[in-house]
């Protein structure tokens, strides 16, 4: 900056803020850490992920596996014998990539995990800064590709809810059906509010009036986008809970109640 005097760099955590600025990044840190630990543990279990017509969203679509939900049969022969096998490992990278590259989560975990910055107007621990211009963070630009996968997963999980309506004795609704249905609704709210989707369905236009369907789609996605953070957290919590519900029922610790 021409004619400027270099400002003294603040030390890590230094601020004049009088409020409890560290509370929000702490909650984000604890919330995301809990989910990462639980989902990693659950993904490597490779068992207790289905119960009759219910299948855990962490394991769906089940490409290879031993359950009746498997698309292409049991563990493939080419899978190295020394490597842990779990059907979740084939699929979980996609929704994980969608969340990791999500614009909301990026801002949240840069603050909570990387202190870049810890909170607004609070001093940072590092002098260097690359932003999202160079490797590795330039890879965040692949977000829209993960969005395409997330939309596919939404269809698969919707089919899982349909399957969860059909028990051995015919149509029915169990608590598990509702748990899986709420999961799809919350994931839908999160996915349909995605910033990349907002751009792709109409945000790229400068003249909405030339394409009314795009304008309507843009307005619809914008509506979800206004509460993107809320959808992100609700869907994160619920997808974890849905796995836990199916898992505890499959283990016989919880019993699934038939409502209809």
């Amino acid at each position: 900056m021409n004619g400027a005097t270099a400002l003294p760099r603040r030390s890590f955590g230094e601020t004049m803020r009088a409020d409890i600025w560290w509370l929000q990044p702490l909650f984000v840190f604890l919330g995301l850490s809990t989910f990462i630990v639980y989902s990693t543990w659950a993904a490597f279990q490779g068992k207790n992920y289905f119960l009759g017509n219910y299948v855990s969203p962490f394991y769906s679509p089940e490409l290879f596996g031993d359950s009746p939900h498997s698309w292409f049969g049991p563990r493939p022969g080419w899978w190295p014998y020394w490597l842990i096998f779990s059907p979740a490992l084939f699929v979980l990278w996609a929704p994980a990539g969608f969340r990791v590259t999500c614009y909301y989560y990026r801002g949240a975990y840069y603050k909570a995990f990387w202190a870049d910055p810890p909170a607004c107007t609070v001093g940072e621990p590092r002098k260097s800064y690359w932003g999202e211009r160079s490797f590795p963070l330039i890879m965040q630009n692949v977000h829209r590709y993960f969005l395409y996968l997330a939309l596919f997963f939404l269809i698969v999980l919707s089919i899982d809810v349909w399957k969860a309506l059909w028990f051995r004795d015919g149509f029915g609704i169990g608590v598990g059906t509702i748990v899986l249905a709420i999961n799809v609704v919350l994931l839908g709210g999160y996915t349909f509010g995605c910033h990349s989707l907002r751009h792709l369905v109409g945000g790229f236009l400068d003249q909405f009036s030339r394409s009314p369907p795009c304008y309507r789609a843009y307005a619809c996605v914008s509506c979800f986008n206004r509460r993107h953070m809320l959808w992100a957290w609700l869907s994160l919590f619920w997808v974890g809970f849905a796995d836990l519900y199916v898992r505890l029922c499959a283990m016989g610790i919880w019993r699934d109640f038939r409502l209809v």
Partner: protein
Amino acid sequence: MSTATFKIWRGNSQNGEFRDYTTETAEGMVVLDAVIQIQATQARDLACRWNCKAGKCGSCSAEVNGMPKLMCMTRLSELPLEKPVTVEPMKAFPVIKDLVTDVSWNFRVKKKIKPFKPRPPDAPDGTWRMQQEDIDRVQEFRKCIECFLCQDVCHVLRDHQMYEKFIGPRFLIHVAALEMHPLDTQDRIEELRNTQGIGYCNITKCCTKVCPESIQITDNGIIPLKERVVDEFYDPLGWFWKGLKRLLNR
């Protein structure tokens, strides 16, 4: 009548310190009222820039209790007055005196941005036709009063001082207002990526938090611009799709 203590930063670009001033407060007072009262009664040489006192001129930007705010829009009733209220100049810009900073860097940045270049007029009388839905989006960005609080809070400028590489949220919003304008024909995407440094923004949304006009700087301005940069530089599937469309339209 109750009183409150204000710790006001006094000094210039070389050195300075906080000084305590205790002044009377009344219902409805804002921080700027208190600062002007202190200036009138206790510190006649206190430098403070202000103009409209209505949150529309963007002159009285400062940091109140560590957060960038317009002093004229910060009510004392919103602050914990049992403790001294700190009032400092914006930290992202060089101090001239006391609460007054040199924000001229911003105006130099603005001059470098490609100006508005409309398409040829739609009507013989030299006027254009626009639909409301086309202009709604950029009208939000036009609310900016150039208080530069968003520039002040942005850690890329404030902490990393990347003034030569990053234009800051205020000017990303300015570019968004031009780039998304239904009449504009300029292409600013390459500059956004290369010289204006949009990739330095890591979406902390601090700029949105401090905007006194409640402009959704990050969600409605910066992220849509980032997506346009992705269209142009990082999306091979998109390039293929656009190429295919061009081929089919021939």
